[in-house]
């Protein structure tokens, strides 16, 4: 009796998951969609960094922005090399689109700011952005990635982005003085 009930419950759970609609939760994305999100997320941070180099006059912000460009570019190169080796193409998806749309709004907003106001907004956004991406990578992506090599690249990436989060925390403190 108990077993039958368990079976019924798990079949119901399966039925709920297997909706024909495209994935709408980050945890439902496949490896190639996850790879696409990561690539988009890297490029968004590189774009913010270029904005900072163009607008900010603070040398510490410039150093930080250059580190973001250097590290996210290095991660993207590794990701592209791995995809090539696996002969796979990243797949666009709802989350990549959502991240891009949000970043465009933020770039518009930050482009209007100058001086200390820009530095503060940029540093705070870097902290918030790396926090959000790290949550996504550790809770939704890494537990669900199937390919072992892709998984280990994300684990290495997470270490980098956690260092960036910590670095961004220092930047927020420095520009809020």
């Amino acid at each position: 009796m108990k077993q039958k009930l368990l079976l019924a419950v798990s079949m119901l759970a399966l039925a709920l998951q297997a909706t024909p609609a495209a994935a709408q939760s980050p945890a439902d994305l496949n490896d190639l969609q996850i790879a696409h999100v990561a690539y988009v997320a890297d490029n968004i941070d590189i774009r913010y960094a270029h904005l900072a180099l163009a607008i900010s006059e603070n040398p510490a912000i410039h150093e930080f922005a250059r580190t973001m460009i250097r590290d996210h570019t290095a991660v993207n190169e590794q990701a592209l090399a791995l995809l090539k080796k696996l002969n796979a193409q990243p797949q666009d998806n709802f989350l990549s689109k959502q991240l891009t749309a949000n970043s465009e709004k933020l770039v518009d907003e930050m482009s209007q700011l100058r001086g200390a106001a820009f530095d503060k907004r940029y540093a705070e956004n870097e902290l918030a952005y790396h926090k959000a991406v790290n949550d996504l990578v550790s809770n939704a992506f890494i537990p669900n990635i199937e390919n072992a090599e892709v998984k280990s690249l994300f684990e290495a990436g997470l270490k980098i982005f956690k260092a960036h989060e910590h670095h961004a925390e220092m930047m927020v403190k420095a520009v809020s003085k």
Partner: protein
Amino acid sequence: MSRRLFIKKVAAAIAAAAFPAHPFAFPGSAVADTRTHRVEISGFRFTPDRLDVSVGDTITWINRDIAPHTATASEGGWDTGELVKDAQASITVTADMETSYFCAFHPMMKAQLSITAADQ
């Protein structure tokens, strides 16, 4: 010459023969005493982050992270320059070199050298 002075002179001569005062005069013998130390950079850490070295030793930093790093003296006195993944760079220890260093790209990465003079 007093007996005591004579003993002092002999002792000094023996010491001079055993420990040449000018280390640069015999590069071959200097190399034999020096060591090469390896510092691995991985997971945004220098390992070891405290290293005992002697003047004349070589320190080699090797980066195992995807992210490029540097080993840079805190006041900028010496610098490996950018080390991409699997790249390495070496620096020879001098008596007056700075002992605190960090990664110029990730300033929260810090480490320390402890230098002892050679030929003691």
